[in-house]
Structure formats: C-alpha cells, structure tokens
C-alpha cells in the first residue's frame, strides 16, 4: 500500500511507464498519461493509450501483472510499483482533467530541462476514446532513485 507521500508523488509531473509480461515472458511496455490513487492508497489507476499498448493490454489481461515506474526528471526521484491483480477498465471522461493536469505538470517539469513543449505534447498526445484505465493493487513498492539505495523495497 502506498503511503501518502508516495501517493502524492506519483500524481505530480512525473514520467510514467507501465510494463507487463506475456506468457512467453516477452515484456511489453507503454507510457502512462497520468494516474490516480484509489481506496486510500490501496489501488492505483494508470491511463494508457490503447493504440500504443496492444501487447501491454493483452499481457495484463492474461497475467494481471504490472510494473509501474514514476520518475521526476528534475530530481531523478523514481518509484516502482508492482501489482499482480491488474485489470483494464473503460476510461471515464470524469478522469480527463487528471490527464490534462498531468500533461500540464509534466511540461512545467521538463521545459526548464531544455525540452521543447511541442515535442512533449506529441509524446503525450491522446484522444479520450483511445484511452484505457489499468487498475491494480500495489503489492510491492521500490525506490529506484539512482544511488546506493536504488532497488530498495519500501513497503
């Protein structure tokens, strides 16, 4: 379960990516476009584009397993969550403001690092009808901030 600090962290202007694994153990991966925390930190919902995540969504359907990384470019603070019960639910338009806010926060985060805003907007561009929501219970939380404590389990 996520503590409030980590729960708040993953909902800032972080870079988000999600991976799963197929029956043949070939990994799949995609960028996330924002997330929200459910049930007081017991569950996490991440938004992905269906058109970019066919293998990932198929693997989640078959295995339920996910690895989810959140990293803040300006500080390199990085968190990895893992889950074994991931499922795909339809994206609800009520979550659109979260996707929009994540994009705005991420732009504010990376522009000072020299990224062009138009490029960031291209990388995170999405259409609401292309979105899907992946919901899972974090069963393990790891710090992946580069350094001696990288990989340390936090929960």
């Amino acid at each position, binding site marked *: 379960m996520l503590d409030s600090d980590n729960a708040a962290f993953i909902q800032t202007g972080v870079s988000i*990516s*999600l*991976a*799963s*694994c197929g*029956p*043949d*153990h*070939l*990994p*799949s*991966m*995609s*960028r996330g476009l924002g997330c929200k925390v459910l049930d007081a930190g017991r569950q996490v919902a991440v938004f992905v*584009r269906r*058109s*970019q995540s066919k293998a990932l969504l198929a693997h989640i359907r078959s*295995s339920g*397993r*996910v*690895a*989810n*990384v959140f*990293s803040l470019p300006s500080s*390199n603070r*990085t968190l*990895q969550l*893992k889950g*074994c019960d991931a499922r795909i639910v339809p994206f609800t338009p009520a979550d659109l403001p979260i996707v929009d806010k994540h994009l705005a926060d991420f732009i504010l985060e990376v522009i000072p690092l*020299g*990224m*062009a805003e*138009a*490029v*960031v*907007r*291209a*990388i995170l*561009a999405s259409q609401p009808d292309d979105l899907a929501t992946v919901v899972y219970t974090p069963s393990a939380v*790891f710090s*992946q901030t*580069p*350094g001696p404590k*990288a*990989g340390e389990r936090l929960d």
Partner: protein
Amino acid sequence: MGLRLDTIRECLEGVIPGHIATCDGEGMPNLAYLSQVQFIDNEHVALSYQFFNRTRRNVLAGSAVRLMLTSHLTGAQYRLTLAYLRTETAGPLFEQMRAKLAGIASHTGMSGVFRLLGSDIYRILAIEQVPGPTLAPPPPTVNYLTALRRATGRLAECATLARLLESALDCLAGEFGIAHVMLLMHDEGRGRLYTLASRGYPQSGIGSEIPIGAGVIGICARERIPIRIGFMTSEYGYGRCVRDSVAADGHGDSLEHAIPLPGLPEAGSQLAVPITAYDRLLGVLYLENVTDLHFGYDDEDALVAFAAQLGLAMHHHQMAEDLAEDEPGPGGAPPAPAGTSLRIRHFAANDSVFIDDDYLIKGVAGAILWTLLTDFVERGRTVFTNKGLRVDPRIRLPGISDNLEARLVLLQRRLEERAAGIHLIKTGRGRFSLVVERPLQLVSE
C-alpha cells in the same frame, strides 16, 4: 526492410531516458530507466550497466528485453526487442560510454552516482515505431556529404604537410561550420600528443602537450576511437586530467605546462577523433562547442571519415618528404645577421631551447633547432634536408615512423609565433633553409 537504428540515433543521446523492461522467471515484469544507449551498428546496441539491480538479475537469468526510446526532436517513440550477448568492462566501447556517461551524469545532477561498471552488448531483434503523432525534425545545420566531398577535394590539392594541416582546419571551419578545433600530433616515443594547429582560440597553443590517456583527447588517442561528450563535465576537462596525470606520473617538469593547451573554459560539447593511417595513430582532431549536444552521431561519422582522409594524406606527405632525393643546392647568400644578438640556450637533458630567457621548444623539435643553429654558427650552413636530419645522430629521432615533417612544422610555427628573427623556409620537397636575421650566441647548458 524494417526501421534502421542508424536513422533514429538521436534517441540514444540521453536527452529523454530510455526505458528497459525485463521479466523474472516467475513472469513478473520489471521496468527501469536507462541513462545511456550506445549505437554500435544496425544490429547491436550497448546499454550502460551501472548498478546490480533487478534488471541486471533478470537479464543474466535470460530474460527477453524490451527497450523504449523517444526522440527529443520529433517525439517519436520506438520499441526495440533485444537479446543480451555479453558485457565489456574495458576497451574502446567501454571508454566511449564512460566518457559519455560522465557528461550525462553531470547534466542530470548524478555526478559521483553514475559510474559505468560495464557495457552490456545486445543484439537488436526488432524495432517498431509506436503509433502516435510526431513532429518534423529540425533541418540539419550542415549537409555532411557535401561538406565531406568538398573537404576531401581540398585536402587532395595540398602539396605540403603544412599546407595540408592549414587546409584541414580551414575545411572544418568553412565546410563543417566548426568554430573551435585543435589538431594534435602523436609523439610515440614520449607517449604524448602535441598541438600543431588550432582555430578559434585567443592563443594557438602550438607546442602544448597532453599525455596519452588524459582527458577526452588522451583517451581518444589511447583507445583510437572517437570520444564524444554532450554535456559539460569537469571529469573529462583536459586541464584537470593533465594535472592529475602529471601528478600521478611524478613529472615535476614545469615545461610540461610552459605552453598552455588552448580550449574553451566551459565546453558543453566535446568530440575527439583519432587520425590514423595503416594501423598507426598519427594524431587527434579535437572539436568543442559551448552548447550542449552540439555534436551528434552524424557529426562523429562525418569527422571520422574526414580524419581517415586526412590521415592518409598526412602519411603520404611524411613519406614523400623523407624519401625526396633532392640534394641541397648551394643556397643563396643569406642576409647578414644584424642588430642585437640573440642568446640561445640549450639544455641537453630534455633538449629544451630558450631564446634569451623565453622557453621556445623541447624534445625532438628542440634537438633539431639546436642542430640547425649549431651548423649555422659553426659552418655557416643554411640549407638542410629531411633525409639528412633523419640520420643525424645529434637529433636522436625516436624511429623511422616518427613524423619528422610534423616536427619541422611545429618548430617553424613556434619560431614564427616567437618572432625572434629565426625562420625555417621550405624550399622544396624534403628540404628547407634556415634564415637567421640576428647574430646568435649559443650557450650549451
């Protein structure tokens, strides 16, 4: 034909970190960020191994590997499927990646944390572009094929080594748009590089030296591979590297720094390219720029191709000067020296030569100058040949492979910069004359 990695290499510069996904034996996925991906060829990449983490455990246990790369120019995303082959912990690839990582670490506030433990080499099994909108890439600043074609033509027109070096640096400025460049020659006998020409600095630095293995230039020479760093890093600043290396060698020789190496105080981008011919290192081309990420893979490729042409041309000129059969003619009557006399001091221990109290040159070039001036004072000789110098026991050239003509160019340029009234004038292939404008007083220390 699928996507070729050489067409999307901007994704590997570390501006947007790559993501690596692996899987453990139980089928649990793992994701990690990658500092660096190095292009090897269209079938192979190397990833930086910095920490023994879950990714590495999975890879060593045989996990398939997926990599996601993103272009900071177009926003295009790519997924690569990789198979691990082996890890290298020393050698050219490792040094290339270690240098580049130092720049990335400095840029991301991770100096002292990012340390390259190995270069993991992977075979590329597939590359797919992730669907989604992309931007048109910005137009390139230089058409490298045109620049190379024109530069190659200009090098071929040069009749002497000195002209070749001038033309090479002119081409880098005019054809390739490179504002700050140094050309250093390899002194095999002493394990050093000496600056023979430069452009874009307040002081030419001709005659300044750097040990093999020190800084970007020295590592490029030692490994004979281009070293390219895209962000400012003190770790590879040559000033510090030279100091460290000199301290480690126990060289208290103050002449080591008598001529400062030119260079930008805060270079954002550095590129050093070895100049080789027939398996021998002839020298290094060093380019720098104040901005970050100024040199990319395409610049590196173009400069390597240019350096290959330059190396062959340098080799040709050296051979031609050494083999020239021209006998020195009688030489015209030289102008009689006039004015106050110059005191020339020679220290035999390191062949250093001082004009009055100012250091001029040392080593082989110092020995050459002392020999020329001795013959001039004792015998009135003004006409010399490369062939004659090569067999002169007073000069003690390190070997037949030594680039004598480059030593003469160095000496000639140092004399011109010093404006002391001593000139070396090339009079034909493999021959030159000495012009002395003032009376000389030779002092052997």
